[in-house]
């Protein structure tokens, strides 16, 4: 067996090459930008989440027959026969979605449905049910806002989408106020309030210098802004 000691000098010189290191700017950028930008993963083993997804899909298939029904339900409106299927599919999607931005958008879909339900039943005298729909709308907005706050590097973009959505829904609800019976108006006011609070929270998330429908400040990103992260990833 060869004796390594005769190479001692070379080995010592080789160890000096350990001085080679990533540049501090790269290290900092990676730590501050790119690690947070890693797509989120749901806690729990791969197999478990796959099994849950499969179970939900199978249940939906068995209960509602062909996937054609599930697809058709996606277009259904409140009051239609397939509307409950749509709701089930929405809940199934939420159960398996792991990305906070996706979850936020799914909550918005549910919230929009609630507004449509309120539009359909605005002239009804069933105040309790109407109040429940407004309450559900408020909950869905709240959940969408929470998901935006968790969505890390996608936060600003998602917040912009949510903000736009809430603006539209606020307008719809305000129009509904003019037509709804008096007993339904407090519920509508709560829903409008929830929309506006949601909008305020979304504006807090967006930096002042990014243009939004309600804030026309100039855009710009510093060295550690989203644009730089995307540019670097796409190189």
């Amino acid at each position, binding site marked *: 067996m060869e004796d390594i000691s005769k190479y001692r000098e070379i080995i010592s*010189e080789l160890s000096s*090459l350990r001085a080679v290191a990533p540049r501090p700017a*790269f290290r900092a950028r990676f730590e501050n930008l790119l690690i947070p930008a890693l797509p989120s993963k749901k806690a729990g083993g791969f197999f478990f989440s796959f099994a849950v997804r499969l179970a939900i899909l199978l249940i939906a298939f068995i209960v509602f027959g062909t996937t054609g029904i599930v697809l058709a339900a996606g277009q259904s409106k409140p009051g239609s026969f397939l509307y409950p299927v749509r709701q089930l599919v929405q809940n199934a999607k939420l159960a398996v979605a792991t990305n906070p931005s996706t979850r936020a958008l799914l909550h918005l879909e549910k919230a929009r449905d609630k507004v449509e339900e309120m539009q359909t039943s605005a002239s009804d005298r069933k105040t309790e049910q109407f109040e429940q729909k407004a309450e559900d709308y408020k909950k869905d907005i709240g959940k969408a806002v929470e998901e935006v706050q968790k969505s890390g590097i996608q936060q600003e973009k998602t917040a912009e989408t949510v903000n736009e959505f809430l603006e539209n829904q606020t307008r719809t609800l305000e129009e509904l106020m003019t037509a709804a019976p008096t007993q339904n108006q407090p519920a509508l006011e709560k829903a409008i309030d929830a929309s506006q609070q949601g909008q305020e929270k979304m504006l807090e998330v967006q930096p002042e210098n990014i243009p939004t429908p309600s804030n026309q400040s100039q855009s710009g990103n510093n060295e550690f802004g989203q644009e730089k992260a995307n540019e670097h990833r796409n190189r």
Partner: protein
Amino acid sequence: MYKKSALNSITDKILVYRAKRGDKEAYGKLYLKYIDSIYRYIFFRVNQNHEEAEDITEIVFFKAWEKFATFDEQAGGFQAWIYAICRNRVIDYYKKEKKQTKLLETHIDERENIEEKVLREEEFENVLAAVRKLPRDQGEVISLKFIEGLSNKEMSRILGKKENAIRALQFRALKNLQMILKHDGRHK
């Protein structure tokens, strides 16, 4: 020479456990632990260019994050696994383009005087140039063993070779390196 302690190994296991469950902070810690050695490995394998080494390092860690769910700790530790990803990315790099290696911009202690600085730079670059001239497998062993300080056992896991083979390779590499440096007038 750096040796991986049992505590170090346990730390890796804990971080891996948390990272597998989607904990980006745990993954960040793993990254910080291995970034220097991964970067160096890549740096010496490609063209000793900082930008290229940074790009590939980034790809390695992103790939590792993507594949984390399938990482099997029983088959080998995180270190071996990430080095394997690293080697594959370097192989991809070789396939895409052949680049001339460039001399390193050296980092020298500013407190040294100019003459020492120049001498040290020269020695550093001589060794770098000599390592560059080694066949790939020998250069790899030199890098992992004598620069990163990995054990033969760890290298065996990373390279997929038996420890005896690695020992033989490292002696061949050192002998070769010595000859190159002699030939270049560095050693007598």
